[in-house]
């Protein structure tokens, strides 16, 4: 019998391994793609080898099906096929794109004859049906799956597993769609299309990266936060790198530039702040799809210049219509699309923040803010403090004394407003373990509700509370007069227990949101920490110094932000004037550790010796760091040279 002819697979009853869609090679339904199923004597298909060897004992069909049964067998089959496909794909990528890695178990086949076959007129040049044909013919003993293959000149180039080579070489001389096939193994590299990356064949990737980074650097305007990518085709560096030899290469080069731009910044926020404007004018762009990556690299771009390109109509811009939600200014002049009557309306519709189009104002900032609302969920409006404390201003009076005492005399504070039943705990959210509060944090989300710490970190009674407070970093809250620094909500509520044991009493729930300055003891840095604090006030027991007491005090600490420079640390106290309330001469809250830290920090900031720093802090400044720093700056000229640790 003559060699099998054509893609219709004369003799073979083996279905295609490829599952192609080409009409001439369709190998049947999904079920037929599997290898020849084994059948038992009754013609039943065994579910898997295990079940074939061990007939089910009793009514355990359920387990055979559920655990290792049909699904298992089929899964293994398809997953191995998938794995092979992936391997083939990857190896092909390696072969054509990099051409570098030696692949010991891969061989390259060169197949001639497709050009002369009838299949050559197919849309893909007949490649797919040829591969189907080869798969089918070669899979006599075991299924063989082929990779994608490429047509280069008169040949089809194909990477295959070494083990499959003999099976495929056997097909040499077969007739495929009226043309004889020549199949040979070769050591020649597959002639590439994408084998040339932007850097040309010799240069290394790192050099390319450096060159591209230099291009980016030279095109970045730091004042305007503008990345000028206009007329890239005229860029000598890029041109010399061969970045524009083809359309595909030009797009790749642009992607590479975008990738480098993105990796250059540590966080999206930094990127956003660093690049606010981009121009890609005069780049011969026909469709924004060619530079689509820009939208993903810089999603919050404010100004974009597309002028002088070749965008013909709105369909060439549609790919970006769900991008650039922050775009305020857009220039498209010099593109044919601008002549269309509905062009401005469409741009305004697509880009909700757009205010200036081709130099004309199309929206006010307010209108833009309103338009953007339709695109993203927006936070609820914020109102100032809501004080409903029953007309006696209990909350204002209480808080007015509370925070200045918390900053200066925590022991006295605990004695005044807390009794044996008062509870205090703090909670630091998910912040890193390095902060001073971490070991006391009663965050039920992180320690777990059954942890013993839920008891240990609940501080009950004024003594325990004062003891804990003494261990916490020194703080400085802004004055309550600065209303914008504080959000205080409070209201009264019924049904607290009356301390007399008779009936119930009204309580006052106060929730405070603000920030305080804090010297972080672990880093010896001054910084600001946001916090919220929830108080439950109730009537005091008889004989207490105040008619009300704190029943519950929950402090929630937020992120701590360091102050950038020592200068900032000096300026910051302006927000928090020294309280005029009588303050004890020696704040009890400062333990020796905190003092040592303050001394160290003052040394660092002033260059004074530890001894002089201590004197400066202990003197008129009364362990107030900012006062000490201020007095240092005032008296700097009078200080003897030996006050400084090293000659200035």
């Amino acid at each position: 019998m003559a060699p099998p002819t054509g893609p219709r697979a004369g003799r073979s009853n083996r279905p295609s391994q490829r599952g192609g869609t080409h009409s001439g090679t369709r190998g049947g339904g999904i079920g037929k793609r599997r290898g020849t199923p084994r059948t038992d004597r009754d013609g039943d298909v065994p579910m898997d080898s295990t079940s074939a060897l061990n007939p089910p004992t009793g009514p355990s069909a359920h387990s055979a099906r559920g655990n290792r049964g049909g699904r298992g067998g089929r899964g293994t089959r398809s997953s191995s096929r998938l794995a092979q496909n992936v391997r083939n794909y990857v190896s092909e990528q390696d072969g054509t794109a990099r051409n570098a890695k030696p692949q010991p178990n891969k061989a390259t086949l060169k197949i001639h004859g497709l050009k002369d076959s009838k299949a050559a007129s197919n849309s893909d040049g007949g490649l797919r049906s040829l591969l189907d044909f080869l798969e089918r013919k070669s899979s006599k003993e075991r299924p063989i799956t082929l990779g994608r293959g490429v047509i280069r000149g008169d040949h089809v180039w194909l990477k295959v597993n070494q083990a499959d080579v003999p099976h495929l070489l056997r097909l040499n001389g077969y007739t495929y769609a009226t043309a004889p096939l020549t199949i040979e193994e070769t050591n020649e590299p597959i002639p590439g299309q994408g084998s040339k990356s932007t850097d040309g064949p010799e240069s290394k990737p790192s050099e390319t990266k450096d060159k591209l980074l230099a291009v980016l650097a030279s095109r970045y305007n730091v004042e305007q936060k503008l990345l000028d990518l206009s007329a890239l085709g005229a860029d000598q560096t890029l041109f010399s790198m061969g970045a524009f030899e083809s359309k595909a290469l030009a797009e790749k080069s642009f992607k590479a530039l975008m990738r480098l731009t993105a990796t250059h910044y540590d966080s999206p926020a930094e990127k956003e702040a660093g690049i606010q404007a981009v121009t890609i004018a005069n780049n011969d762009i026909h469709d924004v799809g060619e530079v689509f990556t820009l939208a993903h690299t810089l999603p919050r771009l404010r100004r974009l210049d597309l002028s002088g390109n070749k965008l013909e109509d709105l369909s060439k811009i549609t790919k970006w219509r769900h991008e650039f939600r922050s775009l305020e200014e857009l220039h498209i002049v010099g593109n044919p699309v601008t002549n269309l009557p509905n062009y401005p309306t469409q741009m305004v519709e697509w880009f909700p923040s757009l205010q200036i189009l081709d130099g004309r104002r199309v929206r006010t900032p307010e209108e833009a803010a309103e338009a953007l609302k339709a695109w993203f969920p927006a936070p609820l409006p914020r109102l100032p403090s809501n004080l409903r404390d029953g007309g006696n201003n209990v909350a204002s009076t209480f808080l007015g004394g509370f925070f200045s005492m918390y900053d200066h005399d925590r022991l006295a504070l605990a004695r005044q407003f807390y009794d044996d039943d008062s509870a205090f705990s703090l909670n630091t959210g998910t912040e890193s373990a390095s902060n001073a509060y971490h070991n006391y944090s009663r965050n039920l989300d992180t320690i777990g509700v059954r942890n013993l710490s839920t008891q240990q970190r609940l501080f009950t009674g004024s003594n325990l509370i004062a003891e804990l407070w003494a261990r916490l970093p020194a703080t400085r809250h802004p004055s309550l007069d600065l209303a914008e620094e504080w959000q205080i909500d409070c209201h009264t509520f019924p049904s607290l227990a009356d301390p007399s044991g008779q009936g119930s009493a009204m309580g006052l729930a106060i929730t405070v949101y603000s920030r305080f300055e804090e010297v972080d003891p672990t880093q010896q840095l001054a910084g600001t920490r946001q916090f919220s604090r929830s108080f439950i006030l109730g009537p005091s027991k008889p004989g207490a110094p105040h008619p009300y007491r704190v029943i519950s005090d929950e402090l929630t600490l937020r992120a701590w932000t360091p102050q950038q420079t020592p200068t900032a640390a000096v300026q910051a106290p302006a927000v928090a004037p020294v309280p005029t309330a009588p303050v004890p001469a020696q704040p009890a809250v400062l333990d020796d550790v905190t003092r040592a830290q303050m001394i160290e920090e003052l040394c660092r900031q002033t260059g004074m010796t530890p001894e002089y720093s201590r004197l400066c802090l202990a003197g008129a400044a009364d362990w107030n760091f900012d006062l000490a720093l201020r007095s240092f700056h005032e008296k700097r000229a009078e200080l003897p040279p030996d006050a400084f640790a090293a000659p200035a």
Partner: protein
Amino acid sequence: MSANSHETNVRCSCEAAKSFVDWYYRQVNDAKSVSPGYVNGHAAYDRAGHPPADICINGLVVATPQEWEKLLEQQRQAPKQPDPNKRRVRYEVEGYDVHVINADYRFGAPQKMLDLHSPTDGVRMMMVLSVAGTVYFGTGRNKGDEYWEKQNFHDRFILVPNWDVIEKPGARHGRKYLIISHNYRAN
């Protein structure tokens, strides 16, 4: 030391807090109703004449839980956004803490409950719960999804026993504690 910090009460309050937090933020994130969590409309409290829950949202006093739900709905609006992963509002709880503030809570309690549970049984508790976290706007369903904007949020709830549920022996369903006060701030 008062009954408020009794071991059983501390344990029960922590467990109640966890169950409440899990439920509440799941409802909010799934755009489901949170109204049943408030004291309003619960029979035992209605009968005893308890005032409606005090709800204060970013400084605005809101009359009913339904109005708060409307605000949440308003916050979720993004009619033009085609991408479901840029349309959501997601609350992520990063920490919470609870104190018992009245271990001998009696309001609206059936006599049976007063007889049955002493103040150290971890049942008749009035609690204050603080929850802190981050709220993401214009994001997807999952943690770590990209977002358009984020804020810190802080919720403070005062919770009281839900007699209707606790009273039934072996009650497994329904909220065991109800909100009588809710303070919300997002910055």
